[in-house]
């Protein structure tokens, strides 16, 4: 069984970041790496990103606190020789350096990467950029929302009678941060076995494109540009509009009862739904008028689909979220509540899996539960959450280490 040792114990990461680099560093810290943030005096700008939350002595960014748990902070002014000397000294013992385009521009990245490789040829330099490296667009300005658009995702969200809508979270940057964590580890795995370091770059645009799943194939194969549909859309390149969001008494559920592929799970789910409807006396002929999830499920005429879902919609509208959720879990019906944020905090499944862990952060006056236990590793479990650092909280510790190294050599 586990001796509690972390998977990445002994790995050192330098992080010079805003949001996306921090998400990367946080995943590495959770897996056991020693992550040292390099911040300007007073802390990096992302400490003020919205939304701000009240903490002891003022306010601080919620995202910053969450994505910087368990890290150390060293302050250094990277525009000065002294600051660069601190960076070089830390790079000497680092396995991975991670940075992102909202924290520094490409010229600064190149300067620091060259210094890092000069000190340590085995280091993995990881950079998150809007469009990646090595082409004429690498300096094109971008934000999370323009990248949600250029990745092809924004176009497909929202109601057809209004403009497309973004996901109301910086998902491009967050997903790119998570992607950077695995790409950096792949390159580190190579360095571990060969002592060869390298540069790794991550494109936020490509990360967004990877959230589409089948859009680029739908165009190539069918010349079909999938269109947004709000609660009702053409699911999985269907030729007809399917309802995905269903109102109930006190909220909404996501449900795909018929059509569009889903294999045997959807067949069983529909059978379970019909049993339940029959208990309530709903046995309309249309429910069984054809094999809705069998042959021809991709080509159901729109009017037939609308007719059968009208009956199902009436049934769902009369139920509460609790009734629907309980029965769906019991009978394996392919249905899920559209959770609010509060619902996520109360979800019994998360509680049963010890997903939320208590963060005790006395310096900030925080005692809150956070979703930090995101992977179960039998031999190297994720450690309980540790507070995010104060600006330069560990500067003395690492500068002493630098001095000791220098005197030893």
């Amino acid at each position, binding site marked *: 069984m586990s001796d509690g040792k972390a998977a990445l114990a002994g790995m050192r990461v330098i992080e010079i970041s805003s949001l996306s680099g921090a998400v990367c560093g946080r995943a590495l810290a959770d897996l056991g790496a020693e992550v040292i943030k390099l911040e300007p005096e007073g802390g990096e700008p992302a400490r003020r990103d919205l939304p701000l939350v009240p903490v002891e002595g003022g306010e601080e960014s919620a995202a910053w606190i969450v994505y910087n748990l368990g890290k150390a902070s060293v302050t250094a002014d990277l525009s000065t020789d002294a600051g660069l000397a601190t960076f070089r000294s830390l790079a000497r013992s680092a396995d991975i350096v991670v940075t992102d385009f909202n924290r520094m521009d490409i010229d600064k990245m190149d300067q620091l990467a060259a210094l890092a490789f000069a000190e340590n040829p085995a280091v993995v330099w990881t950079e998150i950029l809007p469009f*990646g490296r090595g082409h004429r667009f690498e300096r094109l300005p971008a934000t999370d929302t323009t990248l949600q658009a250029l990745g092809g995702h924004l176009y497909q969200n929202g109601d057809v009678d209004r403009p497309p809508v973004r996901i109301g979270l910086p998902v491009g940057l967050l997903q790119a941060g998570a992607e950077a964590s695995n790409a950096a580890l792949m390159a580190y795995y190579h360095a571990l076995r060969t002592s060869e370091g390298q540069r790794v770059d*991550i494109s936020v645009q490509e990360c967004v494109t990877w959230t589409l799943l089948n859009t680029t194939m739908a165009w190539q194969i069918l010349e079909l540009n999938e269109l947004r549909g709000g609660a009702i859309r053409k699911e999985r390149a269907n030729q007809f509009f399917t309802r995905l969001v269903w109102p109930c008494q006190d909220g909404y559920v996501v449900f795909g009862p018929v059509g569009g592929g889903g294999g045997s799970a959807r067949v069983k789910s529909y059978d379970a739904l019909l049993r339940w409807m029959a208990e309530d006396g709903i046995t309309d002929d249309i429910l069984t008028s054809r094999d809705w999830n069998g042959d021809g499920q991709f080509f159901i005429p729109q009017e037939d689909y609308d007719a059968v879902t009208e009956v199902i919609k009436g049934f769902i509208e009369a139920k509460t979220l609790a009734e629907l959720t309980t029965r769906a879990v019991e009978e394996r019906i392919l249905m899920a509540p559209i959770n609010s944020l509060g619902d996520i905090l109360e979800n*019994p499944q998360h509680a049963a899996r010890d997903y939320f862990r208590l963060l005790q952060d006395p310096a900030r006056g925080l005692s809150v539960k956070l979703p930090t236990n995101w992977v179960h590793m039998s031999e190297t479990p994720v450690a309980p959450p540790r507070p995010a650092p104060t600006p330069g909280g560990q500067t003395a510790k690492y500068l002493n280490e630098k001095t000791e190294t220098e005197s030893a050599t």
Partner: protein
Amino acid sequence: MRKGIFDGLKVCDFMWAAAGPITTKQLSDNGATVVKVESVKHPDSIRLGGPFIDNKPGINRSGFFADFHSSKLGMAVDMSHADRLEIIRPLVEWADVVAESFRPGIMQKWGLGYEDLRKMNPNIIMLSSSLHGADGPWAKHPGYGAQGAALAGIQHMTGWPDRPPATPKGAYSDSVSPRYALAALMAALIHREKTGQGQHVELAQIEATVQLVAPQLLELQLTGHETQRSGNRKSGAIQHGVYPCSGEERWIVIECETEAQWQALCAVLDAGDRLVQARHAGQDALDKALSDITAPHDAFALSRKLQDAGVPAAVAYKGSDLLDDPILEAREHFWPLHHEEMGTLKYNGPAYRFEKTPTTLRSASPRLGEHSEQVMRDILGFSTGEIEAFRARGLLS
């Protein structure tokens, strides 16, 4: 050509649907030998999800399936056959990693739970990915990424405040969990490289996806304020929206975070007075004014003009635009690969680039059971006679 990072790594891959195969695709495209094992009777369900070539459903015709299975070998085994382990056991003994994304309990039913695998191969790393996780009251509740997005709060954050939540494109949680799954798998591989010890890595799609709303969960606990979907509004921005342009379903994103960007926007659109007035009147008025002004413009030309002036702007790309995008082309994002039944299609390459160990999409997706014989003979060392005997007993397609 240089070898990929995972050259020599051996993976027995029971992943299916989207999240799992996207994870193991990162291994195969970087050089690992990934053997995708499918059940003859219940092949990967996204083989049955469109788009299908020529719009005709067929087991080897789905572009949805194809995109997640580049560089993999495919074998088809009757997993319901009592003697299935005669084939699967040697595959597990061969492998460094066994990956699976079945409903919890299926692998155990087949005699392939983590403890079983460890007996066959003591240093094995097992990666298990499911929607809700391996235990807990919802463990066996079925669902896809659409349900995952709903449960993880992504849907709550998408759409208009006066309308039901909109469905984000894609099985959204299927696109989040591979990134975290791969990070954890890499950590396990690194740990094994250093210590020789394998382990079981288990994660839930929804738990990975909730990472994206963690700041909002903190805010809710500390302030009582629950963030809601808000169309295209963004706190702190001077202006942030999506506006119509000329042509069918053409839209442009424009975003001003700074006064300098705002001034540049007013100058490029040559509508300073009107926009300043609208800004004073509020966000609704500003969106209306901008919509009126952008409507006759070509989205691509206007976005270039705004970008040149330092204003963040972008065309809301359609699927077809991605395939024509000069940025993705310069990035060499798409990989044309030939498939015997589907012809040549452009597969999506990764979102990362390694300077010294390039990723290579080596082959198109396997047809069901395409490499059964090759795997049995070249990897597992069975003779032609033995392979025929397996076929005769119905174990192998």
